[in-house]
């Protein structure tokens, strides 16, 4: 889900807002070339979250453009919240977005998404039944799952004693033995999610006392934490700068490729399970093209290319069958249903709890 790129966005967002106010973004969106009269589809996705032709992979965007003679204006974001703020403020013109579970729930409740016409998305039939009618879109009217995954613990086998990983718990992130060698999520939802799971609470709790307890736990952890990071985690783990870090399971393949001593487990207390699904922004002027795009993304070879490139798990039954056996059988990418039962999907938190979460996060970071 969240391969964040370092974003210098605060100022840029401002700039974009002003530009759109003064210059007036054209309804077509983006800068269409003078002699390019193809229809333009604006796709807004996570950074590094599509097969782009690198290393002999399929260039999905290019293949789509050729097949349908539609030009794709492709831009990326680093977090659900960043994407939401952009859409909400009306800055820029987007047709396709790929939010995560809780953000889809929120956007549906705020009437920010178009209902999909599944007659135009025949390939939807390939999506596994386990990935349909999920809680965030119970009637499955607004979203088509793109990729999914879980959050777990990465550790360096050379730097961590075997006995400490034996019980496969979140506790290792609080183990004083590894003080200064622990990395932690640099975003509140994931960080609090871990603390809440460790306490045995729901990650979607609306009990303020439980959030407070989770905060105390994170505050207790802070002296042991080397750094709060997102995608710097790849370098820091590969260079053995740190020994332990929580991150998204799919990234294990990239991490192990860089440093074979890195191991991964899904903690026994349970974890977060996330879905990133394709949606169409309310008021999209290219809804049909957008549905073509979603359908294209659900073609088996495209879904396979994306899952192989991004390394996150695919909900596509045919693509799954085409994956390497060792990946299909790997419990980290495709955990057993028993393991998954312990995992929770984020729900949209009520505004009061969201506010509390952000306040506690700033409090933690200024402590």
């Amino acid at each position: 889900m969240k391969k964040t790129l370092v974003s210098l966005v605060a100022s840029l967002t401002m700039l974009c807002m002003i530009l759109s106010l003064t210059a007036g973004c054209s309804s077509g969106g983006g800068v269409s070339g003078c002699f390019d009269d193809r229809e333009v589809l604006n796709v807004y996705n996570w950074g590094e979250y599509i097969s782009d032709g690198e290393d002999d992979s399929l260039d999905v965007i290019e293949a789509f453009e050729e097949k349908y003679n539609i030009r794709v204006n492709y831009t990326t974001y680093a977090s659900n919240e960043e994407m939401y703020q952009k859409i909400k403020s009306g800055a820029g013109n987007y047709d396709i977005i790929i939010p995560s579970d809780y953000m889809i729930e929120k956007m549906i409740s705020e009437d920010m998404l178009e209902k999909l016409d599944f007659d135009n998305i025949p390939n939807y039939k390939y999506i596994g039944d386990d990935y349909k009618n999920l809680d965030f879109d119970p009637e499955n009217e607004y979203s088509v799952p793109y990729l999914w995954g879980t959050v777990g613990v990465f550790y360096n086998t050379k730097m961590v004693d075997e006995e400490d990983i034996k019980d496969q718990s979140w506790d290792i992130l609080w183990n004083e033995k590894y003080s200064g060698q622990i990395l932690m999520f640099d975003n509140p939802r994931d960080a609090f999610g871990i603390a809440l799971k460790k306490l045995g609470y729901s990650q979607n709790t609306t009990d303020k006392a439980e959030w407070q307890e989770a905060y105390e736990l994170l505050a207790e952890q802070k002296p042991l934490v080397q750094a709060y990071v997102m995608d710097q985690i790849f370098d820091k783990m590969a260079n053995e700068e740190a020994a332990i870090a929580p991150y998204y399971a799919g990234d294990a393949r990239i991490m192990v490729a860089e440093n074979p001593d890195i191991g991964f487990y899904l903690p026994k207390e349970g974890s977060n399970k996330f879905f990133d699904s394709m949606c169409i922004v309310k008021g999209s002027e290219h809804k049909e093209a957008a549905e073509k795009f979603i359908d294209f993304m659900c073609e088996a070879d495209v879904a396979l290319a994306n899952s192989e490139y991004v390394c996150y798990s695919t909900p596509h039954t045919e693509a799954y069958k085409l994956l390497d056996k060792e990946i299909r059988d790997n419990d980290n990418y495709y955990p057993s249903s028993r393991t998954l039962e312990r995992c929770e999907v984020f729900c949209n938190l009520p505004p009061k709890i969201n506010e509390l979460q952000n306040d506690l996060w700033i409090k933690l970071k200024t402590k």
Partner: protein
Amino acid sequence: MNKKSSVLAAPFALWILIFTVVPLALVVYFAFWGDNGFTLDFIKSIGEGEYAKSLGTSIWLGAIATVICLLLGYPVAYIISRAKGISQRTMVMLIMLPQWMNFLLRTYALMSLLENNGLINTWLRDIGLDPINIINTRAAVVLGMVYDFLPFMVLPIYSVMTKIDHRVTEAAQDLGANGFVVFRRVILPLSVPGIISGITMVFVPAVSSFIISRLLGGGKEMLIGDVIEMLFIQVEGGRNVGAALSLVLMVLMLICMTLMNHFDDSEDSGGMIA
């Protein structure tokens, strides 16, 4: 004549209008106008919570970085201004050279230099010394600020110093002043405008810097720039408080600068860049 110059200034005026005046007006607007019209709540909320603390830390670290820049930069500026022709140009070039590289890249580079398994510590271990533990500390954040903003201290001081008439220092020497007195009574006062603009150009971006603390400080301490970024990007409806915070920051900076300019009592402030 007048008409002509105002025509020539028009593009710049337009630029300032679009990229300075309008954004500033938007910041003020968001800081005072919420969904229910005019309110002082956003400004008030800054006093509560953790914002004040973060603001204090930012000003404190920015001030330290500024002092270090001044202590490092002033002698350098002096030496460069006294150097002859080609070597002077070479030295100015060397000061500017790092600026040609993107600031984010330089900060990333600094991170991989300072890390526990970074270049510096690897060398230290190779020659049998203890590694230094600096990454993810406040010291690393200050170092990053100094590293990124030092040229902004050196260049204005240098440009003022080159304008100091040699005959003035010679006159002082003729009147019996030794080297130290010449510096204290002649060169230092004449270079004040450069110092002031140097301080302005380092302090303001240092206090409001936001990526440095995340990369070099391990994200363990949110500086005010990080808080504002988070409010704008992560927090729904956070842009009002974010704008209020930006506004308070700007006002504080303005007060600092006004106080600073008070020290600058020389008539000629030709060195002012900011």
